[in-house]
């Protein structure tokens, strides 16, 4: 019999459909009788949705405009050398 802690550990695999059939059924049955775990799975789905919207970024101090200029200058040299 699955416990709430097992559901928490397997939530990603459950959502992604990566659980073996027997475990998926066991988890589904647990969700039928446990409101807390149903709510947890709902929260987890919302977490995934919001991450895809907020799109947190790596901390990065690269000057992207300067990098783009450097690559552009290099492209000019490389490709004009090929002509």
């Amino acid at each position: 019999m699955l416990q709430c802690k097992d559901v928490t550990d397997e939530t990603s695999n459950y959502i992604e459909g990566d659980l073996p059939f027997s475990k998926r059924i066991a988890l589904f049955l647990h969700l039928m009788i446990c409101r807390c775990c149903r709510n947890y799975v709902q929260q987890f789905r919302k977490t995934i949705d919001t991450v895809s919207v907020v799109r947190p970024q790596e901390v990065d101090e690269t000057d992207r405009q300067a990098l783009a200029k450097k690559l552009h200058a290099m492209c000019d040299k490389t490709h004009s050398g090929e002509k």
Partner: protein
Amino acid sequence: MIKNIFKSQRDDENTLIQNLVAGDPLAFEYVVAEYHNLMLSVARAIVGDSIADEVVQEAWISAIKALPKFEGRSSLKTWLVQIVSNGAKSRVRRENRYTPLDDGWEAVPSDKFDQTGHRIDDVLPWETATPEALLANTQLQEVIEQAFQALPAMQRAAITMIDMEGYKIDEVCNILDISSSNARVLLHRARVAVHDAIEQHQDN
């Protein structure tokens, strides 16, 4: 309809590549803005923070040199990520580097369950945490960004690639050179950390 969308994405990308080869400065700004973060995330996961910047710069240079030969068999994003992944992996081999999977990660002590594994406190549904509501709540956005940035590099790469960029688990395994069970664990830990940060914010 879907066919048209794909066709138009392919056309857009062809135009972008033509503009890059033709030396359009705006095209360079666009690709750097669009893909640098993902490339950095992949490099940091494979080689660690200290030399990731260098690996990404080298990858950009290799990509620009090879651009006229780019045949479009994959998307530009896939191609760039493959270049940075290969560069990072060869750096790891050459320097005999070892990057731990979960460097610095510690499981949060689980005080949410009793000894039998049942939840102690009630869990309520999140009514307001729709993506739209989150976008309107800058404080919560900061909470999510901070939780993400506190994750080890491998976990950040897993959640970035799968939940933000739409990669499949097996693609992530190839790019980061990890097993699928490791990829699943990293992804789950990252999601749990972000979930817990949101939950804590909602409780306060």
